């Protein structure tokens, strides 16, 4: 009985690109947070009862604050309501949630930190914290709205792919790797399923240790409802079937243990 839902206080909010917002929250969740974990953010609207899982983009332990970068997915959505929050407003959260990236695996290794689309934000805190041999950040965007670019440049060697080719490699993160003839011994990745599938295949072909962060619809966010499962290769010890819970056993999985 050590955890609870709490009111986080909005420290600041800004729009990074069309529909992409950056929100700094003061919350006790910051104390324990690790890169790759997420926050369950609740609305203040009684018609929307389920949490929105949003990855932690930056951690400021001193201020006890977390930065969340998120996309507004439509009118009348919870994220739309989040985007209207102003400094001083309160918003209910539970966190930190999930396992986070196993930073120790990258120690002394040549590493890819890969993010695509709205999977880009969690790569930032990861890049800030990971201690590895060659920190190659490979991120993919839709277009020239390359949010967080400056922050990435300060934290590693940055490679960008854009779908429309307006910045960096035209295509996705895999295209960028090929174009730049990059390689690595460890991969940490977050992004859309198609991208994760490609990365998983690439890692397995090349025998690279690869961790991917998955997304699934959630109800409880704490591992109790079995809403958010992903298929696993082996029978999982908790579920006793081929399912793991993204919210609790993940969101970060070893690429070889899940079937996506």
């Amino acid at each position, binding site marked *: *009985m*050590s*955890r*609870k*839902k709490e009111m986080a206080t909005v420290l600041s909010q800004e729009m990074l690109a069309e529909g992409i917002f950056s929100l700094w929250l003061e919350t006790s969740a910051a104390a324990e947070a690790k890169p790759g974990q997420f926050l369950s953010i*609740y609305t203040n609207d*009684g*018609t*929307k*009862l*389920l*949490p929105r899982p949003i990855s932690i983009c930056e951690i400021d332990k001193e201020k006890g604050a977390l930065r969340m970068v998120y996309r507004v997915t*439509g009118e009348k959505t919870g994220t739309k309501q989040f985007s209207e929050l102003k400094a001083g407003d309160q918003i209910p959260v*539970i966190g930190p949630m999930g396992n986070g990236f196993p930073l120790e695996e990258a120690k002394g290794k040549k590493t890819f930190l890969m993010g695509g689309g709205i999977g880009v934000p969690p790569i930032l805190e990861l890049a800030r914290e990971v201690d590895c041999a060659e920190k190659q950040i490979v991120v993919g965007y839709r277009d020239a709205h390359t949010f967080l670019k400056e922050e990435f440049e300060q934290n590693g060697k940055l490679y960008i792919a854009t779908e429309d080719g307006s910045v960096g490699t035209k295509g996705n993160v895999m295209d960028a790797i090929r174009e730049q003839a990059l390689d690595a011994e460890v991969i940490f990745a977050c992004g859309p399923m198609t991208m994760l599938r490609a990365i998983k295949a690439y890692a397995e072909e090349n025998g690279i240790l690869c961790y991917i962060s998955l997304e*699934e*619809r*959630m*109800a*409880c*966010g*704490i*591992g*109790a*409802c*079995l*809403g*958010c*499962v*992903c298929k696993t290769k082996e029978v999982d010890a*908790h*579920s*006793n*079937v*081929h*399912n793991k819970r993204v919210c*609790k056993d993940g969101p970060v999985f070893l690429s070889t243990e899940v079937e996506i």
Partner: protein
Amino acid sequence: MNMAVNIAGVEWKNPVTTASGTFGSGEEFSEFVDLNRLGAVTTKGVANVPWPGNPTPRVAEVYGGMMNAIGLQNPGIDLFCKRDIPFLRKYDTKIIVNVCGKSEQDYCEVVERLGDEDVDMLEINISCPNVKEGGIAFGQNPKAAESITKAVKKYAKQPVIMKLSPNVTDITEMARAVEAGGADVVSLINTLTGMKIDINRKTFAIANKTGGMSGPAVHPIAVRMVYQVAQAVKLPIIGMGGIASAEDAIEMILAGASAVSVGTANFHNPAVTMEIVEGIEKYMQAQGFDSVADMVGIVK
């Protein structure tokens, strides 16, 4: 003032339990809730063998509630007995094991097996709308409901709670059927079958197409059914459906429930069960009720 309730011979310290499937076996929630404060913990449905459940997406948000089609994923009775019962036994709360199955035999196997286990009550889920044979065939047909109740009762060493589906024309007919079959308690309601379509992707929000709706939006339907069942049978009732506050729980009790289960609300506020226990206590104080039993079904 006495918060305890006696449900078919089992004394709960207060009338609040958790709705099956929304609380796992309590472990995850034990970080948020002092399980000792609950009248009982009702566990996620367990079958004779492990079930993988449905494909994802399994859950969706709807106005004032949610839908799910978990499909009764469960680790099977063996692992459950080895891991989940000992975990719960560490707490001073009653254990209600929710049982699911695809055939009468499945149910009976689990019930028989549980006879040797240290659990307090069994809840038989004959009302899961999310798996083709997750019991709903029993739950929408009075004859089948009566027959499975009888079968289960033959094997059961603990009191049997039959859990009813709201997706029926006449809930009292179902309640009478399980009463005739020898049920000790009825619980209701399970989820209402719903559907959500994503109009931009032009597809179902839930892979299973339909899902079971729960949460505050269904509360008035649940209260109505609890009331109707209370008029129709003599069995004690565990009322559930959309309870998210002490007020909601009290409404259910005044309508005829001897105890209440809290489900979806746990997802919105993991500490809600404890708050509901406290709220009922405050209400009883304010209104001068000496015992929970004095409130049950007094609005007629």
